[in-house]
């Protein structure tokens, strides 16, 4: 029986993420997986993952709790990104306030702000309150709260843990790549050298970006998941290659929208159609239209739009169903609940 060989190369954490997933979801009889660490992990600071890290690890059979302590994990409830004006914005992974009657919380907040002065919208985010608290709650406690969270790991420890997992799953791990290894049926390049993600012929470039915390992890993990979900013989996979590339490029477009929103001087002047739509619709009525294959969640878009000074001219009419007094009471209560939950968590 001939053996299909995949070579994955890049830095340890990059190769670890892709390799660990493929070892569990692709490797099998007639398949070989070689993981080559070809560059060092030079980036400073922890390696941030997004909330889908739980599913990703669940799927490959390596639960987060097993890695948390050894990889010096810490929960992340919002990603901090730089903005054009030199400032930064926290993009929370979970909704502001709570939805009510099918209407998002910020619509009620907008309405309430017209009635009386309100605390800033960001003060109604449990994610931000917990993210900014002095101590993060333990995983078990976080899992009970209505928040999504990723984990920040020590980069080297996380990379090593994933490489060990891949090795235990049957992958071979080497440092550097020799010519013979380059002859693999497919070479997956994890480092950000390529300009765009692409799978063509015997090369698949993930082209991960890392300017927003969690993005590098997202690109690598979703590239691996997508590849495994489109599994096909490597000698006969033209439709799968086209599909993988189409999806990866579409996701990159959504990331580029966010990048532009954060960096452009005047968000109302963007020439990117999907971003333009987001900005205009949000400015008009506070709704945030979504596209297929979004990477960032609606709360992250909301925080970014808000931070860039885009604010809705009106609130959603459905939010007017709540009488004024009830609306103001409800907002007070919500703030109180967020503060007391954060205190409880700190005290625990």
């Amino acid at each position, binding site marked *: 029986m001939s053996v299909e060989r995949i070579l994955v190369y890049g830095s340890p954490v990059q190769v670890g993420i892709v390799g660990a997933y493929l070892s569990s*979801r*692709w490797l*099998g*009889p*007639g*398949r070989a997986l070689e993981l080559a660490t070809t560059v060092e992990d030079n980036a400073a600071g922890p390696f941030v993952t997004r909330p889908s890290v739980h599913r990703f690890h669940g*799927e490959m059979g390596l639960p987060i709790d097993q890695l948390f302590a050894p990889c010096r994990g810490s929960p992340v409830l919002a990603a901090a990104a730089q903005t054009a004006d030199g400032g930064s914005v926290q993009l929370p992974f979970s909704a502001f306030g709570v939805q009510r009657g*099918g209407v998002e919380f910020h619509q009620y907040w907008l309405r309430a702000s017209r009635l009386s002065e309100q605390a800033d919208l960001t003060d109604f985010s449990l994610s931000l309150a917990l993210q900014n608290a002095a101590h993060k709650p333990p995983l078990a406690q976080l899992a009970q709260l209505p928040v999504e969270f990723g984990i920040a790991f020590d980069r080297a420890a996380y990379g090593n843990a994933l490489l060990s997992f891949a090795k235990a799953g049957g992958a071979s791990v080497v440092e550097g790549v020799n010519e013979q290894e380059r002859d693999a049926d497919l070479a997956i390049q994890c480092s950000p050298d390529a300009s765009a993600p692409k799978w063509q012929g015997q090369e698949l470039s993930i082209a991960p970006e890392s300017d927003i915390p969690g993005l590098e992890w997202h690109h690598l993990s979703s590239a691996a998941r997508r590849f*495994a*979900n*489109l*599994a*096909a*013989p490597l000698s*006969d*996979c*033209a*439709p*799968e290659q*086209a*599909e993988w590339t189409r999806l990866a490029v579409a996701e990159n477009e959504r990331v580029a929208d966010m990048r532009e929103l954060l960096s452009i001087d005047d968000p109302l002047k963007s020439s990117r159609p999907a971003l333009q*739509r987001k900005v*205009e*619709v949000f*400015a*008009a*009525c506070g*709704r945030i*239209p*979504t*596209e*297929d*294959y*979004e990477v960032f969640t609606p709360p992250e878009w909301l925080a970014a739009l808000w931070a860039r000074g885009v604010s809705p001219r*009106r609130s*959603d*009419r*459905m939010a*007017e*169903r709540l009488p004024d007094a009830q609306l103001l009471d409800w907002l007070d209560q919500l703030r109180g609940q967020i503060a007391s939950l954060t205190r409880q968590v700190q005290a625990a």
Partner: protein
Amino acid sequence: MGANEGKQAINRVVVVGGGTAGWMTAAGLASMLGPTGLEITLIESEAIGVVGVGEATLPHIKNFNDTIGVNEAEFMAATSATFKLGIEFVNWGRKGDSYIHPFGEFGLPNAGVAFHQYWRKFAGQPGVGALDEYSLPVIASRLGKFQPPDDDPRSVMSTYRYAYQFDALQYAPFMRSHAEARGVTRMEGKVVDVALEPESGRVTALTMDDGRVIEGDLFVDCTGFFGLLIEKTLSAGYDDWSEWLPADRAVAVPCESAGPLLPYTRATAREAGWSWRIPLQHRTGNGHVYSSQFLSDDAACDTLLGGLEGERLADPRFLRFVTGKRRKLWSRNVVAIGLSGGFLEPLESTSIYLIQEGITKLLELFPADQHCDVEVAEYNRWMDLQFERVRDFLIMHYHATERDDSDFWNHMRTMTVPDSLAERLELFTAHGHVSAYDHGLFLVPSWVAVLIGQRVLPSSVDARVSGQADAEVLRHLAGLKGHMEKAAGSMEDHAAYLARNNMMRAAA
């Protein structure tokens, strides 16, 4: 607020048309925006009447009903409704074939590999059976059983959803009582004239045949195929899709129920189209959808009448349509919802879903005043996407066939399909992968159901399936089938469920 500003504010909505679309829109707006002071008036003309078909729905209608506060048992009894777990397609891939497109999943994925990949590897082996034998709603459908799904995601009883089949002539009146109870004003009569503001071209008022003038800020055109405001007045234009969906006529007739009350709709492919059979509490709805290019009205009617299972209850009614959609579903201050906005033909029961989607989007983007170009553009973008994705799914039913027994099927099988569909088919036929999107009605299990049901089999399977021993997989398939059969067997008989839950309509 300045006088001018006041004129621009949207506080009066006029819905023209009292069919399914009109009353659903009025009920939706009244439930969600009535408490904000929005005035809603609905004009309908008994003399013109309603299209009177449209009896099979999709599971999303339950969300709509729940959102606007409809009591399920009352609704079922008032509309002589039955439950629907899917659609049986007969004679589509080949004459003699039958499969059910269920509102649910097939089997369970294993180690990231979709269930249909395992099934594909062993299809044709003794005891393995058809893919739909691994779907709980299909097994329940064939047994004539029903039970609402369970919330527990670990239970096999959570692997499906359900919709309704109801009497179209009873549904609009039910929605009407719901809407009127929430403040909607109904006006009987025919709109004979439409006044436009000269500068903006916006509709300002409607004149009725008795001379009354009804003013409004926003108008919802629910006049069915007439398209009174959106087309006859504003000339929004029409994207004609009959190149891919050439059915342009239907003949419909009700008959007495025969046999047990089945929890599914049947769609049987015919010489130049297909016929429907929709079981209701008190009768069966039947119709034949066909292309007049390939079949005469008489022949279509004969086919329909020849296939009735019970005594005919009315004269056959003929309907004409052109498949497609309005170029702008929202133009100036007119939103077209229902048949006035477009029609993709009844296959897969998507029309009421598109009405619901139109209402939901209108509520989400409901403008404060007439300066709402952004909201209008977003509404149109969203609805275009919905229509286009439904269109591709419908085209696939006709195109993915081996039938070569008539000019119609030869044409459909060999026609060029939209690129978006061609790429999907290419991906699936390679190794069984389905291209997924986030925004669209039909999800992966639906594409798998129809493709495999119509004999479009991947040329080879996801190679990871070989990672498991054949005997183990076969044991797993048998176990799963047995488990589902047991679960379906323990459900209640469909008619008994309706009766026990006070969902049967009292005899007149």
